[in-house]
């Protein structure tokens, strides 16, 4: 039995226009994500995967971005044609997003706690006491050690892994039904990456939210994704369950990508 898709992208086209050039970054893609599942969108730089992720919340700057065709349906509603006010209600509440570099998305001049509180204030969640409660709840959910101390710290005082946990807490506070994670572990050490990926798996099991994960790293895909879509030059060349795509790839580009991905060799080097 298949549940109704949480997120459904149909024939999406995204074009970027500048004075000198016009680039069709995404040239007609179809994606479906079910609730409680993780879908990984994999591709190299220039494949269009980030533009796709940003388009869900219409975060691509317009201009130069335009959407000449296609729909992005969240729980049945097309987000691309939603008026700004309604879109703002969806952003950060029903759909949350985490990015690659927390130092870029966190305000370095304010404590972590005040930024978390601010997010809820913007969404007018409860009163101050309620917000504080939710904040600590989220920090615990994100397995942030000593949350009361962390809340009073500034971003630069935290390690990369902790900052990413804070970002996840920020995303979780509003109890989103969909989390979009754009290269969430690319800037992290290997051991920290393993922790964060583990956390993502746990969070999904605990909250039942859907996760759209953008990455260039097949190892990350193998670690957390139920299904995956391989993107190249603006189109999806292959998609299916993670196991199927890894073990029985049908597309040449997918095969190339799999072959090129470094694997730990315990035998003698070539």
């Amino acid at each position, binding site marked *: 039995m298949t549940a109704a898709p949480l997120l459904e992208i149909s024939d999406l086209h995204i074009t970027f226009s500048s004075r000198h050039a016009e680039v069709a970054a995404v040239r007609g893609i179809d994606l479906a994500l079910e609730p409680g599942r993780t879908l990984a969108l994999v591709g190299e730089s220039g494949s269009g995967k980030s533009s796709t992720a940003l388009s869900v919340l219409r975060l691509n700057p317009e201009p130069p971005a335009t959407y000449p065709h296609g729909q992005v349906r969240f729980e049945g509603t097309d987000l691309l044609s939603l008026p700004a006010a309604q879109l703002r209600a969806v952003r950060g509440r029903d759909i949350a997003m985490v990015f690659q570099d927390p130092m870029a998305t966190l305000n370095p001049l304010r404590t972590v706690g005040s930024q978390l509180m601010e997010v809820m204030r913007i969404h007018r969640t409860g009163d101050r006491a309620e917000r504080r409660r939710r904040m600590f709840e989220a920090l615990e959910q994100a397995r942030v050690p000593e949350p009361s101390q962390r809340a009073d710290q500034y971003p630069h005082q935290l390690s990369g892994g902790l900052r990413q946990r804070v970002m996840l807490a920020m995303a979780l506070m509003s109890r989103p039904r969909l989390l979009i994670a754009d290269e969430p572990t690319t800037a992290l050490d290997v051991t920290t990456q393993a922790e964060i990926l583990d956390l993502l798996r746990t969070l999904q099991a605990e909250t039942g939210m859907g996760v759209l994960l953008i990455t260039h790293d*097949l*190892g990350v895909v193998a670690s957390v994704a139920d299904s995956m879509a391989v993107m190249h030059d603006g189109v999806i060349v292959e998609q299916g369950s993670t196991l199927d795509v890894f073990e029985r790839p049908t597309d040449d580009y997918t095969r190339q990508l799999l072959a090129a991905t470094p694997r730990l060799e315990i035998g003698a080097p070539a």
Partner: protein
Amino acid sequence: MSTHETADPVLSLRGIGKTFRRHRTEKRVLSDIDLDVRPGETLALVGESGSGKTTLARIAVGLAEPTEGEVLTAGEDLRTGRRRASAQQARMVQMVFQDPYASMNPRMRIRDVVAEGLLTHRRSELGLDGIRAEVARLLDAVDLDPDLARRFPHECSGGQRQRIAIARALALEPRLLVLDEPTSALDVSVQATILDLLRQLQERTGVAYLFVSHDLAVVSGIADRVAVMADGRIAEIGRCREVLSAPSSEVTRRLLASIAHPDPRRANPALAAGADR
């Protein structure tokens, strides 16, 4: 790939320590580092951020001065105490940087980028015509179209730029090439071709590599020996195969356990188990 264990090491680091002093705070970044790179071998320096591997690489190449210890290049201490390498040093050790976008002067054409070292040190030997020919030969050796010579760096892709960086580094025929995460900023499909190129070049020229990386999978495919670093010290060093299959230090074990294998059955056993049901 042969390692001449009896010949003089290309690079010898003895008792290296480094402390950074800023205002009134001190940070101990490296302690008690003893390391040799043997002729023609690939020695990988592995560690997480903060392990000191990048600082050590910079000391090896002369961009940083150790607080204690000595750096011997082919048995001699060539340090000048200044940032700028001496002619002797430049012809022994060269570097390939991580970021192919930042490691090239955006205003210089590719042919000038590659020729710079030649003009500085081999001009009397080659003459201007000889330099031009050598630039073409180097670009060919890294599998680049000679037409690229008149372009600017921003007109080239990341993979091309890294090849140019390698060509530039090899222009002075160094015995040791220090590579600081040379493929981390590149797409996976390009990474593999660069690593292949590095292997070929080593076979042809016998140059040794000090290969800094955080990626054990990459390292396992290219290194003869590996030194695992943590907290400014070498936690473990030995033949790659041995260290990775039977690690003796906790650091190495933790690194190995954290690898995200591109294999769902290994990386996400719960998923695989569920699917097979």
